[in-house]
């Protein structure tokens, strides 16, 4: 029992929609306090994997274990930040951040009090009373991030959270996310199709093959020191070497996905 506990443990998981096999064989192990990025071409089943970890999808074969226990029903330990906008448009940034607390029975006033420091943590001080449409795309993502993290889930799941943002905003988000994760380490599964992003953020990068019937093709440790400087990191030799190594696998899969998608 010398190894750290596994927060998420997927073994040979297969996921089918009717006759369609989306994922043929996925292996994903995420230790406690580990940051794992999953990369793969569009349509390879990345979102499907997160839905499986949340318990929204049942695998057709294989095993899903959360902290050693087989997952039945919904995963009570995970917080899921969706790819698309899910904020309530009729609630202010402040109330959106505290939403999960209110759902758990907190009073609105109590939820607001707890939400205030989180707004500051994601750099939204002064924007508390804004409604989502009065925020920029990056600010809305930060509200969504605080909304997920305030619940203090043991496992954080993020599905391409920053893919709709411009490069500069994305870098800012990376910095905020890394700071938050560094301060309060949780298991984090981060889905992305952007290899730069994956290497910048993660302890490990898991590569998936092109879909359908995708599988895990590689699991690469990112031994870059922490805390990381997200803007300086990408020009270092270590970073470039890792990028080359993983791209030699991922690039081939991306090529294949072009062929299968016509």
């Amino acid at each position: 029992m010398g190894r750290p506990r596994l927060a998420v443990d997927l073994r040979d998981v297969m996921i089918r929609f009717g006759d369609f096999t989306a994922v043929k064989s996925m292996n994903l192990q995420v230790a406690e306090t580990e940051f794992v990025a999953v990369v793969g071409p569009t349509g390879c089943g990345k979102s499907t994997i997160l839905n499986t970890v949340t318990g929204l999808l049942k695998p057709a074969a294989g095993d899903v274990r959360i902290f050693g226990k087989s997952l039945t029903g919904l995963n009570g330990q995970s917080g899921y930040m969706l790819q698309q906008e899910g904020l309530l448009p009729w609630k202010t940034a402040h109330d959106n951040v505290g939403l999960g607390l209110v759902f758990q029975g907190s009073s609105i006033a109590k939820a607001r009090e707890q939400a205030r420091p989180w707004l500051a943590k994601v750099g939204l001080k002064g924007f508390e009373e804004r409604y989502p449409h009065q925020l920029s795309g990056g600010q809305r993502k930060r509200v969504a991030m605080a909304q997920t993290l305030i619940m203090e889930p043991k496992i954080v799941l993020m599905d391409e959270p920053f893919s709709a943002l411009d490069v500069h905003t994305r870098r800012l988000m990376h910095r905020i996310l890394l700071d938050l994760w560094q301060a309060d380490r949780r298991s984090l599964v981060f889905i992305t199709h952007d290899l730069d992003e994956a290497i910048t953020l993660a302890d490990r990068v898991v590569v998936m093959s092109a879909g359908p019937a995708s599988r895990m093709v590689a699991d690469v440790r990112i031994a870059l020191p922490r805390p990381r400087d997200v803007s300086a990191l990408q020009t270092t030799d270590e970073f470039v070497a890792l990028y080359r190594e993983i791209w030699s696998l991922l690039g081939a899969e991306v090529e294949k996905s072009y062929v299968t998608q016509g």
Partner: protein
Amino acid sequence: MSRRGRVALTQFAIVLGLILIWELGVWAGLIDPFFFPAPSTLVVRIGDWMSTADFWTDIGITLLETVLSFLAGIGIGTALGIWLGLSPFAAEVVQPFIKMFNAIPRILLGPIFVIWFGLGLTSKVALGVTLVLFVAFFNTFQGVREVNPVVLANARLLRASKSSLLRHVYLPSATTWILSSLRVSVGMAVMGAVVAEYLGSSAGLGHLIAQAEGVLDATGVFAGIIVLSAFVVVLDAIVDCAEKRLLVWRPAPAHES
């Protein structure tokens, strides 16, 4: 001058021009005042009315009927809309009946309500409710059905219970739709009240107009209609204010900002 100012000025000029032509036409004997009484006599008539207590009672009664049928109609329609919006089975069962009932020209129910509920307030409110209810129902139903699925999924992932979803997601979503149909609902409530009064009652603006019509008093009819329009315009302005305050969270339409 701003565009709005110019629009208002032009509108004012058109109204003023029409009134002048009308007034001068009556004076010159080109228009028969028996059918089209001169604007000046309408003003005098309204002035006369306003100095009587009966007139204000009439307005008060119509207002009360309007407000009651508005509130009851919105309440029942919203409850029905939420229930059917959340229960596809019930919606499928009830849908044809609702369509059938909505297809009845509501004016025809007026006399029946008078027979059922008498000449008093109840029959007026009943007619107003049947008109408002459907507007509120269809909008709530739509609002509940068209909740953004991502917003809903996100709330579920934050472990919202059924009642939390109703309170924080479905109802606010439906509220937008209900509010945006509020003006139509108010119009319907006024129509229900006035038509029912017109069909049979002893008070209210509809009764006032019906009385004038009974003695072929065109001046009374026109004056009554003008008062009624003013009544609706005022209610409309109030609703407009309420809507703006309740929908602060919504982005302003592009052409207004």
